[in-house]
């Protein structure tokens, strides 16, 4: 193996003078899992189906957090690509909930307006939430329209969409919650928090 990538990933050196000493503790509190036990055995990264697509492998992100490299940890794309499939935590010998670390970093990145390396993934999540806020349920066609408008991606997947429409797999009318105000109130309550 020629893996000499330092914890900063991508062959770049890590600047340890830029460390935020309290960062690891904050992430740990949000995530509710003790990643200081991480052995860096890389089982998580080996099992993760999206390791290849990530800027840092899952264990690399844990290393960034341990080192207190706040900005690097909050502005790389790994936690956005992470789908929360838990393949990693099932394989982790230290029983670390790696997906919970990714969740915490994502929430912290949003809360601090960190720069987003994968805006389209956030756009997608927002389109799903907008659909839930409108109908109380997800409406696939509505989500796709919202997503495509915002991501300015009009033509990819036209073919897939048309095939699904032809098979009556994309309903034109949404399935709705009757008391949708109740669902909307939950969104309002979250904004206040």
């Amino acid at each position, binding site marked *: 193996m020629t893996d000499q990538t330092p914890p900063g990933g991508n062959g770049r050196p890590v600047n340890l003078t830029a460390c935020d000493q309290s960062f690891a503790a904050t992430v740990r509190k949000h995530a509710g899992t003790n990643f200081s036990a991480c052995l860096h055995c890389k089982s998580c990264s080996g099992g993760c*189906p999206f390791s290849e697509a990530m800027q840092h492998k899952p264990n690399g992100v844990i290393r960034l957090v341990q080192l207190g490299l706040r900005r690097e940890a909050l502005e790389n794309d790994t936690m956005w690509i992470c789908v929360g499939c838990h393949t990693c935590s099932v394989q982790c010998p230290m029983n670390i909930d790696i997906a919970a670390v990714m969740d915490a970093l994502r*929430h912290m990145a949003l809360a601090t307006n960190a720069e987003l390396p994968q805006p389209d993934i*956030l756009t997608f999540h*927002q389109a799903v939430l907008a659909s839930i806020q409108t109908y109380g349920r997800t409406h696939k066609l509505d989500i796709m329209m919202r997503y495509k408008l915002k991501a300015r991606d009009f033509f990819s997947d036209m073919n897939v969409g048309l095939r699904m429409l032809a098979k009556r797999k994309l309903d034109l009318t949404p399935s709705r919650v009757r008391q949708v105000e109740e669902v909307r109130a939950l969104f309002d309550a979250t904004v206040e928090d």
Partner: protein
Amino acid sequence: MATSKLIDMAYFPGCSLATTAKESNASLIAYCRRIGVNLIELPDWNCCGSSSAHSLSRQLALDLASRNLAQIPEGLPLLVACPSCTLRLDEARHHLQTHATARTRFEANWNRPFDSGLKIVHFLELLENKTASNNSNGHCQSLNGLKFVPYYGCMLNRPPSIRSEKNLFGLMEKILAQLGAEPMRWSYHSKCCGTFLSVARPDAVVPLVNRIFENAVDTRAKCIVTACAMCHMNLEIRCTRKEKLPVLHFSELLSLAMGAGDHPDWFARHLIDPRPVLTTYGLLG
């Protein structure tokens, strides 16, 4: 039919089964009826929040799940059809059971206490203790040696907090084998299907899905059987290989074996037509 009284269970179909995967919902309800389970759909259920609520806000994810949990008739277990909804709702259940502040919020929002004994059951768990005979209830059509690979996606992987609960590994193989199908071994049964990345990053999902198909074809299976509507969709829309296999919902095969008569409707809705394979095995028409 000399069935004893039906057992009631609360039922959460979830968005996919209410829309895109209607075929799976119909076959699931038909199957439950046959094994003596009466499903009472939550009167005004909402989306479980899916990956997106969970990705962006923990509180919103918990609140959306709670609104559903608050609609469960007292004392009934909740049957959930979709593995991903099961995980979301069960995480909320676990959080409510272990956090007093969350329970207070639940009570304030929904004017009822949280039922601390609540059980959330995925459709597969319901079948766990069924033997071949009561699965069939005397209505069994053999699946005639149909070769399949079971695809669980990420449903067998759970976060450490709820890991100690029941594991459903091997259940699809066991039940379908009892009904006359032949499971093939492979190592891709728990590979993730890509879930939401299928929309924003198809470039990352296509190779993964193609690898899943490649492995399935190598085992000489004639179809992939999945228990998740999201997996079903991603496998169907993201496979770019020439040589594809039909992807069947687990509940479709069950209902077919039970002799449900309305399957032409379900099979016509697949993007990869399963009818040629099923016809070869003498399972249609």
